[in-house]
């Protein structure tokens, strides 16, 4: 078949690295399945769900064709998928699964067991809306709901980043300072099913980068049997949770280290976040996922018009890079935080609440003794508004994001929020408190 491998097939996802650093057109799911094949975990347990299904199918054909040594466990539910990888990981295996939406919701209980047992499982999450009503399209409510389950969360802007994140996730998870499970999130259909020309590593390069998993303790160590998952009461539970919190804090050091090693290998460099044209910006949007690409395009367009627009793309949501966030946004006048999830707090989406919290009480924006603002925030902390967008796969166009910037620039010019704000693309805002604006992008009233 040579180069005529049809995109969207197992052959495409499993192509050999005939040319080193070859650029190749893959869908997001193909790219992630390829990364999984190259990592070659000892155990994969998975259950199909749209839009993740391709991964399971591709991986099944790698197993059927003898291209991986992985034990592939075709479980009867996502609850069992997560349970089986918990067992496999505790037994000393490098274990992976993948899911979306309701599948992630069904895993819920066991997500906490994976992180609480300090098991370095890696799981691609192909972001999709949660039922009800049932909807198979892109939405971040699934992974956002799991944001406090003790998993590291890496988010991806495109198939390249999803591929790169899966490979880095293995090293992050298994670092002895971390030993936490990692979710690699990427947008359903928009990334999972769209073709992108991307650069892939050779199998050997990936194997060398991730190394062999050699846990300190395992169920299968004949000389040192271990009890995993004991009853842990008020005399020790709290200390174990504190250790877990410290592991998540340690991930803040480890993620940039792994990114630096990966950049040395690939030339592609990732941080906790990406600040795009932020240095002199007055207004910016904070985005995670595929909408970051659209936002970058809009920022460039606005810059050509002389408007000081910027973008902050969040790659790591857990651990939350609060200080970097404050540093990057503290000097701006107005920021819109984009949430592809409502969260139903009635006080703004999850990303909004984290970002605005990160900007509160900064040394840099506190007035000095004379009452003058100091540091990077000469005008005080920026106005932060929330924009909920794209639920259930609703498209987000450049014009939508331009409308968000228009709102920010109007605020900078002194326009007060009004009930009918942003009539048109932006819905009437919800005003849960005098200083909180939540807009819904492109929704009918």
């Amino acid at each position, binding site marked *: 078949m040579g180069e005529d491998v049809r995109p969207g097939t197992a052959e495409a996802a499993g192509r050999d690295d005939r040319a080193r650093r070859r650029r190749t057109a893959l869908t997001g799911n193909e790219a992630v399945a390829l990364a999984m094949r190259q990592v070659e975990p*000892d*155990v994969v*347990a998975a259950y199909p769900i749209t839009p993740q299904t391709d991964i399971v199918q591709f991986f099944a054909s790698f197993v059927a064709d003898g291209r991986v*040594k*992985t*034990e592939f*466990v*075709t*479980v*009867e*539910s996502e*609850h*069992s*998928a997560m*349970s*089986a*990888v*918990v*067992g*496999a*990981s*505790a*037994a*000393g*295996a490098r*274990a992976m699964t993948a899911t979306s939406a309701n599948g992630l919701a069904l895993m819920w*209980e*066991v997500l906490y*067991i994976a992180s609480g*047992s300090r098991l370095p499982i890696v799981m691609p999450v192909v972001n999709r809306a949660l039922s009800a009503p049932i909807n198979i399209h892109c939405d971040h409510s699934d992974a956002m709901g799991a944001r406090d389950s003790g998993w590291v969360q890496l988010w991806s802007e495109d198939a390249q980043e999803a591929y790169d994140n899966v490979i880095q996730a293995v090293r992050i998870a298994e670092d002895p300072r971390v030993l936490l499970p990692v979710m690699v999130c990427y947008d359903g259909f928009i990334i999972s099913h769209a073709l992108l020309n991307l650069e892939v590593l050779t199998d050997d390069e990936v194997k060398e980068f991730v190394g062999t998993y050699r846990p300190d303790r395992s*169920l*299968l*160590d*004949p000389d040192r*049997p*271990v*009890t*995993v*998952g*004991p*009853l*842990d*009461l008020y005399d*020790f539970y709290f200390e174990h949770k504190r250790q877990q919190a410290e592991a998540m804090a340690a991930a803040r050091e480890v993620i940039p280290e792994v990114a630096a090693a990966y950049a040395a290998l690939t030339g592609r460099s990732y941080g906790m976040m990406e600040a795009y044209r932020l240095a002199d910006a007055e207004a910016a949007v904070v985005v995670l996922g595929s909408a970051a690409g659209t936002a970058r395009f809009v920022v460039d367009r606005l810059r050509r018009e002389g408007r000081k627009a910027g973008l902050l793309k969040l790659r790591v949501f857990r651990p939350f890079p609060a200080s970097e966030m404050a540093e990057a946004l503290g000097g701006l006048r107005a920021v819109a935080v984009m949430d592809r999830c409502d969260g139903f707090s009635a006080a703004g989406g999850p990303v909004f609440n984290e970002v605005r919290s990160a900007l509160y009480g900064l040394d840099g924006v506190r007035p000095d003794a004379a009452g003058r603002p100091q540091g990077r925030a000469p005008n005080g902390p920026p106005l932060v508004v929330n924009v909920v967008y794209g639920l259930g796969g609703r498209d987000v166009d450049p014009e939508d994001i331009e409308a968000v910037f228009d709102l920010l620039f109007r605020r900078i010019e002194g326009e007060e929020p009004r009930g009918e704000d942003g009539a048109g693309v932006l819905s009437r805002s919800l005003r849960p408190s005098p200083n909180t604006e939540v807009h819904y992008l492109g929704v009918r009233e």
Partner: protein
Amino acid sequence: MSLKVKSLKELAAAPQWLTPGHRMCAGCGAPIAMRQLLAAAPRRVVVGCATGCLEVATTIYPYTAWRCSFIHSAFENTAATMSGVEAAYRSLRRQARVEADFVFVAVGGDGGTYDIGLQSLSGMLERGHRVVYVCYDNGAYMNTGVQRSSATPKGAATTTCPAGEASPGKRQPRKDLLAVASAHGIPYAAQAAPSHWRDLVRKAEKAFRAEGPAFLNILAPCPRGWRYDTAQTIELTRLAVETCFWPLVEVEEGRWSITFRPKKKKPLLDFLKPQGRFRHLFEGQNLKMIEEMQREVDENWRRLEALERLTAPAEGLRRSS
């Protein structure tokens, strides 16, 4: 399958994977069942346990009563968890990264097996993982304080099916989990009781040797839930067997066999009488329920005998024992 059952002396010398000093109640049937089972383990063992009495009372951090590796994950997923452990073992053995031999045991109470863990168990049996799944059946959610499960016998009073003016206790018969498990076409499934330890150990040995998943359902009286004197545990399982309330049977490659036939079948009353959970049945109009329960026990025994005849090897083939 021919095998020599370990002698009592050999059993006594077997590694004690579950040590004394755990915090199970006096008279609890579960650790007795586990120790009999594990004495038959041919190699090192890894035990996975569902949330429940056995788990919480043997692994109170920083202590553990397990000399073997042990994993508890959650209530309903012990079969899936052990599927993962066994898959890891196969993978790491193939790569020569693990060299020791292991056998794998998954344990759950009846709540974790008949009810909330049934899907996970079904998945493990269907996929063919080489794990021995053991249910210690005490007929209710004892760890949370004696709530009904689908293993609770008809007529028993629990805290969620109490006997009262308008209720005789549980109205539904127990789920036939042995039939459910064996319907997966697994190589070995059996029902056992600690009073008949030789039968139990023989079944455990067969389960450990099975080339695939095996299922054992072991009766494990609970003095708290059944409401009887703690010294009567073994006597009660003997009565359960001798009244045919708890027939000792096995299903080997689809062939059903009754492994113990009481010389003289005792009336069900003998089993019910010592237990507080059935006390209300001996009052007034509830007495007819005992007759109903006796009929069901008789009917079940006839069904087992019929299954035995139906699944017997064809003429000319010798059954191995």
